[in-house]
Each structure stands twice: as structure tokens, then as C-alpha cells.
């Protein structure tokens, strides 16, 4: 079944120049491996199609049950050059939480809905 990430994780995003970072934090340690399996750099790149123009990197933080994504060339030049409302990528966090991933019925039981 398809599950939206907002039911599995919370997130925060920020900027470094023209690169946005999105930290995705699992609601529980049991959910984290599912994020590792499903939320790959390629899938995030596809999700942010039309926004992230450069490559997408992923880093794993099992200690925090979190993934960190770097979305290169995604902020219209970044900093003061950018004309975007969200020149600092602050809302990329909730944009990532729109993504849907495929879970088995068993896995879906781990869902902790937005408390």
C-alpha cells in the first residue's frame, strides 16, 4: 500500500548557497530502515523534478534515525541572487513529506500518524 511520508517522518530543511538540504527524521527507529529502503536519492530527485536541477545526494544517520538529502541547484542561484519566495529552501521539508512510498501491510502497521 502507498503511504505518504508525512505519516512516517518529520523533516527540516535549509540552504547552503544554491543547495537545499532536507533532513528526514523517522517517527520511530522501526520506521527508519523503511525510509533507507524506499527514499533513495534517485526517488527524491524524481520527486523534486523541475525544482532540483542538479544531482541529489543522500547521507544516512542511523544514530538519529534520519536521512539527509542535498538538492543541488535548487534555489534559483541561492542567497541574495534568488528571486524565489523560498530562497532558503525552508519549505522543502514539507515538500518532501508529500512523497508516497510503497509498504507491505505488515510494515504499514508501524505508521505513527502525525501525533
Amino acid at each position, binding site marked *: 500500500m502507498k503511504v505518504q511520508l508525512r505519516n512516517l517522518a518529520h523533516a527540516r530543511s535549509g540552504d547552503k548557497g544554491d543547495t537545499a538540504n532536507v533532513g528526514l*527524521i523517522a517517527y520511530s527507529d522501526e520506521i527508519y530502515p523503511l525510509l533507507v529502503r524506499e527514499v533513495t536519492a534517485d526517488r527524491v530527485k524524481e520527486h523534486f523534478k523541475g525544482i532540483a536541477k542538479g544531482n541529489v545526494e543522500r547521507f544516512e544517520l542511523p544514530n538519529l534515525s534520519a536521512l*539527509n538529502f542535498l538538492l543541488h541547484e535548487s534555489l534559483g542561484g541561492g*542567497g541574495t541572487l534568488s528571486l*524565489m*519566495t*523560498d530562497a532558503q529552501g525552508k519549505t522543502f521539508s*514539507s*515538500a518532501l513529506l508529500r512523497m508516497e512510498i510503497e509498504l507491505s501491510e505488515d510494515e504499514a502497521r508501524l505508521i505513527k500518524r502525525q501525533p
Partner: protein
Amino acid sequence: MQELLRPTPRTVRPAARSRLNIMKELVRIAAGQGFWGDLLEAPVRQVEAGPVDYLMLDYLAEVTMSIMQKQKARDPNAGYARDFIPLMRRILPICVERDIRVTANAGGVNVKGCANAVRDVARDLGLGGKVRIGIVTGDDILPRLDEFLSRGIELRNMDTGAPLTTVIDRIQSANVYLGAWPMVEALKRGAQVVITGRATDTGLTLAPLIHEFGWGATDWDLLAAGTIAGHIIECGAQCSGGNCQYDWQSIPELENVGFPIAEAKADGTFVITKHDGTGGRVNVQSVKEQLVYEMGDPHEYITPDCVADFTTIHVADAGPNRVRVFGIKGKPATEFLKVSISYSAGFKAVGTLVYAWPDAYAKAQAADKILRLRLAGLGLKFDQILTEFVGINATHGPLAGEPQNEVPEVQLRVGVRGPDKNAVERFTKELAPLILTGPPAVTGFAGGRPKVEEIVAYWPALIPKENIEPAVEVIDA
């Protein structure tokens, strides 16, 4: 740096005779400002509402230095975070009374001017002779750029690889990020208030910990721990309930949000908390959200003082509004310092109009089309024209999809940028006419024409450490 390793007996300041040279078990560092423009009452509450040992104040964003450089060009006494002075007037007496020391990168491009202003305030308050002010300089390398370039230090842009010579005639400021050690020196010499220019945000927290616990220059794990404590609290309430996605609706009393406090021990473990009786919330989730904020490669969080490894951080619930952080590992600092250079990069302007139901989105789209045709007809050239429809796609872009129902209103937001100031100026005069010459049910132009802004862009670079000599001076009020 080696000399800093030797334990030096602390000078007993007149204001703090009771403070003996005994290592504290716990050092409490309170964050008072997450950026220049943050809640003005926050630092006051931090020193009044409960026990703290240090107050750290982060004032400098990446482009702040260029703004300050311009202010200083107009007035040689300006060029620092002016909010800092009235704040000191309010809190210096209680800081002296309770022996709370302050670390602040409020000095901008005029650290001495800032320190002199604080000294005058201290004297005004009758605290003359009771306050020492530490001044850390050496970060401003604007006068030395030609020297560096002539010696083959190219200061290439870390993001694009371009050499600095491509923008050399447009540079407005150039500052090295200094780390914690010059601040440690100032604290050692008895400074109650330490003022820096471009210092790392994390150094403002790390320096007091090095000073209090006698950490050494190669205690990489401890330096990394202090750095991460700094990272967690440097954005103010963003780790104590502000901008927190996790369970945001149940976070209590944000109108009275408590700014974070790091309670650190000599072994590098610490607890993130806030004063009792304040709003907001510190929990594992709020701290994790701040940990991932502006994160790059988590294995290598590079500062002048160490390289911290974020994959070693452990966080655990330690009671209501208390999160314990432990297990942090660090690696040796690199041989480089980061340089923050700002340069003039053309002009921009952004304007908006609001369209009402019915067909609000279609009207805004039609207006955008008309505007673009007029700009093209005038032969105006821009590097970029960006149109956003606020209410439809300004934040999530194409991810938001087409609106499902008819929306009550849409804000058309158009921005342009380019090297030609006249073209950008002319753009600002083409928006208002749309009200009488475009689609109907439009409003929202009461503010007048948009302002043309000079773009001051950011140029990050690296410089070998041996080229930079931080200077520390301590003056008496």
C-alpha cells in the same frame, strides 16, 4: 595554540571576586539571538528567568557583513549590530551581578567601535572598573586581498571553482570565519563581554566550554561536542519549539517561548533545556530537527576548531524539556579557514498584485502574460524573470499540482534580476499599470512601486590558516 593548552590561573575580576579558580561541574550556556532581528526580549529573559553562566548571541548571517561594510563607509563609527548596545544597557547590570559572561559576534566590520559603545554604556551604568571587554579582530581581510592574490592564493569560489579575480572589482567585504580560540584567550584575560567580528556561530558556545573545562587544542571529541552544542542552540528557539514540525499544534505557549540552554559537563556530554515557566518545548524530536538543519555531509561538519561527526551524536529523553546529548566524536581541524566574501552582482526587484475570485488564478496568469509581453516589447533584458502564484505554487512549485477547487484569491509575484539597473527600474513601473490595463478584480498595490535592490552575492572560499592572525585585546570599562 600550544600556549593555550597550559592551565592558566584565571584572573579574578573585580566584579566576580567570589568566582574562584575551581572547575565548574556544569556550565550553562544560554542562546539569546538566532539571527540579527530575532526576538529582542529573548536574551533579557535568558539572564533574568533562571541560572545561566554564559549568554551567546549570534548576529551575523552571510550577507550581513556587506551591509555593515556599507554602513561603515557612510559613518566610521557604524558597521556593527546596533541592537547589541541597547541590549547591553538592559542586561549588563544583571550580568555583572550574577557573573554571566557574554559572547557575541556583534562587532561586524567595526569590532572596536562596538566595544567602545559597550564600554560607554558600562560607564553610564556606573559599572566603570567592573567590566572588562574582550575584542577579537583579524577576521577582516578586505585590505589584504591584493596581497593574497599576488602570492598565488586564488580564493576560488568553493561552489563554482571560479577564481576571485573574476569579481575582484566588485568586492564589498571579505572576512575569515575565526573559531573559538581567540575568544578563549579573551575569556582567560577576564573579559565579561567578548565581542568578535566574523566568528563561527558554534565558536560562541565552544569558547566558554574550552575556557571553563580546560579542553585542549587536540581534544577533538570534546571540541566536536562543544561545537554540536553550539549548532543546536545557535538558531535560538528553532530547537525549543519554534519552526518545529513534530506535533506542532500541541507545542505550548510559543508567545513566551523559552530559548535554549546547553548544560555542559567537562566530559563533553550536555543537556539541552530551557528555563522553567517558559513556553515552547524541548524534546528529542525538536533537537533532531535542529541537528539536521543546514546539514551537509554529516560525517564532516567542518569548523576552524575541529571536524565534527554528526553520525556519532546520540540523543535521549532526560525528563520534561530536557534532552541529553552524548557519544560525540570529532576529528582534527583542517589546515584551512573559510572566507566569506561579498560582491556586487547586479540588481533585482520583486513586485506583487492580488487577484480575487472568480477565476483568480486564471486572471493572475493572464496578467503575468501581459506583463511579460510588455517587458519584451520594451526590449528590456534580464538574466531572469520569475513568476510565482502565491496560494498556488510559491513554495512547493510543481509538487503542489493544479488547484483542485477554485481558490478565493491568488497573489501574482514577479521578480526580475540583471546587470542593467535601468531595466530593473523600468520593470518596477510596469506593475501598477496592470491594475487599470489588465484583468479585473485586482488590488494590493498600496505599498507603491517595488524597490530596486542591489544584489550583494556571497562568495565562499578557503584560505590556508597560516595567513591569518587573530588579535585579542581586553579593555576596561
